[in-house]
């Protein structure tokens, strides 16, 4: 299990990295390597050139600016998880990260790497969709911002163009009067989710004034549970509305039967997880008894 030959460059600036990527469609950026290197060791992936981003200090910057958390793509997942300012701004992030693989993997795995990898069962892309975050992509032609729901196209496929580099992840801070929760079911601790649901519930006078729900593991990409959100809007996060939301979430399940879970099972999982995460999120709304 040794990787095939490749060329290696470790540029010191984003511009140099973009130049290296621009000339070669088979070149790949190397971030933390926790997803890419296994596929190379299996020789499933055999990039011509690895453009190692580790020397580009600008990609490690992170800051809470008003209601946006800006996370440099090369930020290690474990660093984000333990960042107190980020935790204060949006505690959902740490809760989600606690489910991403294992500490030793998060020590090296990067936030940008996981999002660009875009595994349909991965937690971080699901969180980004749920929070309505976005990414900044740069190429030699310029820079653009891509909203999370436009970024993820298919399992391990994003809207990033060849030669485009994900440089920053932008995660909204937790809005006022909003509770959060993430829960997943995985075969083993740290495994990719059979199904996972991320919930953000904003309450006004005991009813849901805003709801954002997204799921991983249930379709070919992280998925907004729009119908479930609609079922809760204007209603208290419990009882019939919650039951309706759970039922509505089922229609988003499209992942076919695989070796770990059938469609029926995933459908039941997403319904149960919607009930549980919404209830938990609602219970966490500040000031709510």
């Amino acid at each position, binding site marked *: *299990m*040794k990787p*095939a*030959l490749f060329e290696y460059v470790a540029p010191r600036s984003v511009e140099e990295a973009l130049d290296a990527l621009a000339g070669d469609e088979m070149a790949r950026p190397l971030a933390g390597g926790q997803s890419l290197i*296994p596929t190379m060791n*299996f*020789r499933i992936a055999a990039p011509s050139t690895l453009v190692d981003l580790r020397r580009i200090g600008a990609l490690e910057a992170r800051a809470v600016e008003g209601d946006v958390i800006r996370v440099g793509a090369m930020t290690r997942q474990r660093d984000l998880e333990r960042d107190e300012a980020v935790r204060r701004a949006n505690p959902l992030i740490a809760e989600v990260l606690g489910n991403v693989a294992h500490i030793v993997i998060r020590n090296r795995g990067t936030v940008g790497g996981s999002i660009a990898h875009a595994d349909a069962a991965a937690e971080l892309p699901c969180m980004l969709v749920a929070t309505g975050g976005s990414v900044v992509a740069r190429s030699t032609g310029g820079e653009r911002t891509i909203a999370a729901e436009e970024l993820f196209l298919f399992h391990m496929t994003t809207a990033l163009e060849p030669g485009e580099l994900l440089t920053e992840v932008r995660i909204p801070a937790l809005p006022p009067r909003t509770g959060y929760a993430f829960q997943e*079911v995985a*075969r*083993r*601790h*740290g*495994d990719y989710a*059979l199904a996972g649901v991320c919930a953000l519930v904003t309450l006004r006078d005991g009813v849901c004034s805003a709801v954002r729900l997204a799921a991983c593991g249930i379709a070919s990409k992280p998925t907004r549970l729009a119908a479930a959100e609609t079922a809760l809007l204007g209603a208290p996060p419990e009882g019939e509305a919650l039951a309706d939301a759970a039922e509505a979430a089922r229609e988003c399940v499209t992942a076919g039967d695989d*070796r*770990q*879970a*059938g469609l*029926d*099972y995933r459908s*039941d*999982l997403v319904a*149960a*997880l919607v009930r549980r995460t919404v209830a938990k999120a609602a219970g966490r709304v500040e000031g709510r008894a």
Partner: protein
Amino acid sequence: MSTRRFGERIERNADAALLRGEGSFIDDIDLPGALHAAFARSTVARAKLRSVDVSAAEALDGVVRVYTCENIGALDAPLPLLIPAPDLTHPKTQRPLARDDVFYVGQCIAMVVAVDRYVAEDAVRLIEIDYDPLPVEMDLDKAVMDDAPRVHPDVPNNVAGRFCVETGDTDAAFAEAEHVTRIRVRLERSTAAPLECRAIAARWEAVTGELTVWDSTQSTLSVRGGLASLFRIDEDKVRVIAPNVGGGFGQKIMMFHPDEMLVPLAAMELGRPVKYIEDRVENFIGASQERAQIHTLEIAAMKDGRVIGLRDDFLHDTGAFIPYGVAVALVSATSIAGPYRIPNFRVTFRPVYLPAVQVTPYRGCGRPHACYAIERAMDQLAGELGLDRFEVRRRNFIGKDEFPYLREGLIFADGLHVSHDSGAYEEALETLCRTIDVDGFRAAQAAAREEGRYLGLGLGFYVEGTGLGPYEGGHVKIHPITGKVYVNTGLTDQGQGHETVFAQIAAEQTGARVDDVIVVEGDTGAFEWGVATFASRAAVCSGNAIHMAAVKARAQIVEAAANMMECSQEDIELRDGAAWVKGTDRSATLAEIATATNPLRYAFNKPSASATQFAPASRHDGPQLAEGRTPGIEATDYYSPPHATWAFGAHAAVIEVDPELCTIEVRRYVCIHDCGRMINPTIVEGQVMGGIAQGVGGAFYERCEFDEDGTPLNANFMDFLMPYATEVPDVEILHSETPTPLNPLGVKGVGEAGTIPVAQVYASAVEDALRPFGIAPIREAPLTPDAIHRMLRQARKS
């Protein structure tokens, strides 16, 4: 202070080096100039080989040699059938490198030898193999049908042989029965997955004609015998060493995996050391697996729950070949009655060829299968008769006063009879029930149901025939200079702690400190009689042999010490590395005694001066080594068991099932285990706990999956779900100690025990938890969340 060493919780001798990273596993051995091997393996389950073109691989820079069946000379022949049996009518073994046909995905077709493993893997990908695929049937049930595609054209129904074992009069028992319970259970294929994959290195010394092979094997002596035979080299010129081995669990008892012959061949032909370090994917597709069986079991009972007869017919997946004979299936068949009297039973079975890597023993070796079948049936019987699950078992246990309990007519995997030598089965169950508090649990279960939570109590009882022959030896010697005790046996260690428990046995007799006992095994150069590490036999076979040798050494020490200190032998006591005259401060160290008993010409140190020819203490009138005496303190002995000794135990667990998520949480897990007298309880507990963890894998996580074309689907650690610390419960381990009368130490084996009943424990607990939903009984292992979901859904529908 106690001078006892046997039975104490002593820290392991081997640990410090392993903890510092100073272990010496095969790939840690630095062989300057070594070449590295990689294999081209079949990507098709069953095919005719149209062509194998290695020219591009041979041309790659850094490649030294590419081997196919065309250039391995006499090795191009089917591998040996290790354990022949009369009823094994259609035995098939594989060739080291495929010729004309491939029989499973992963089968070796060519071996590349190159300057390093990176280049060797590059070259493997340049080998062009043209296949003509043939139809396959991967389902064990369907593979025996008349119209199923055959793995081997000359083996009808893919059946390697038809076997029948019987004790008592089964048909009469069924005629007499008041109630018959029928079940069908299925266990899936799995694998041992030791964390060190298989590995081998070989060096040929052309000048001396000596072949040295480092092999992560459980059986250095057998590998040496095999290599001497294959290469026609005298045994004394072949040395096989198993240094530190990173787990074996049976997978490394199988020989020969093709590399074990081809790497030595390459080393001899190329004149350079050659290493093959199997990678994880290769371990999943090329190394032995185990576990798949389908049992159709009937038990004949009386209304009071007494089981008077049993019939079992099972299919055993043996993979594409059957090099290890029917050992696994035979253990299943002869263990089927578990701890119960069941005086009449008949087991018929068929090993079935499937186009997958061969099946050879994996920790448990047929016992988990038998346990699952009989214990599932006992649970069902209890349900059908309206009896408590514990009570049904109580009514059938072999009683404490019924030992030895001979199962007349049965022949175990060692070729000897099945006789449960000692036990206290009912007592063990009582202790287990008391500890887990069955009544308290029932109350908790009822209360939890009120809250919409579902708790279940699972139970599994098992027996294990351990310590199989034919024999092992022990050699004990005291080094005259250092006074350390040097112990050898023919086994190998894969982490079981032999170096500590054998040291305890030797220390108990010689009075040495345990950390002054040097145990050297796994090296044919150190001791050359014996068999191997398998079948929970090390403590029984080698342990007793070492004990018997140490008893002899003790007699020598006591005699010599009495002479040296001019007292009677009765006044000598051995402790703290010395012989003491009881009640005095007079002593002679083991070094002094070993020196004094070895007449010397040269003085190396102060004690040795006293053994030289002009020293007063060694003045003799006759020969300095008296007639009939051997120099120093040294003894060898051998132990050959009359038959297997039967260990036993019982597990119980409280498992909570979340019926929405179909996930489980083990709330409590209790195990009581009896392996006779314990040499080191800490090590016993470690063995039991490790076995349970592997059982947990088999109960809820691990299986080797194939698609219908025979392609492995989860040949990696991401998809083969070996449990982490988060999936294995904490286990309360209780001991019962019923010595066996069969051997001087009174010990039974413990290596495999923990694994055996776990799948049953999980199944029965989940079944108990979900009883309010009316689910169908659980009949398949491993259980999965998806399977729980299907059962609940089915129950809701009906």
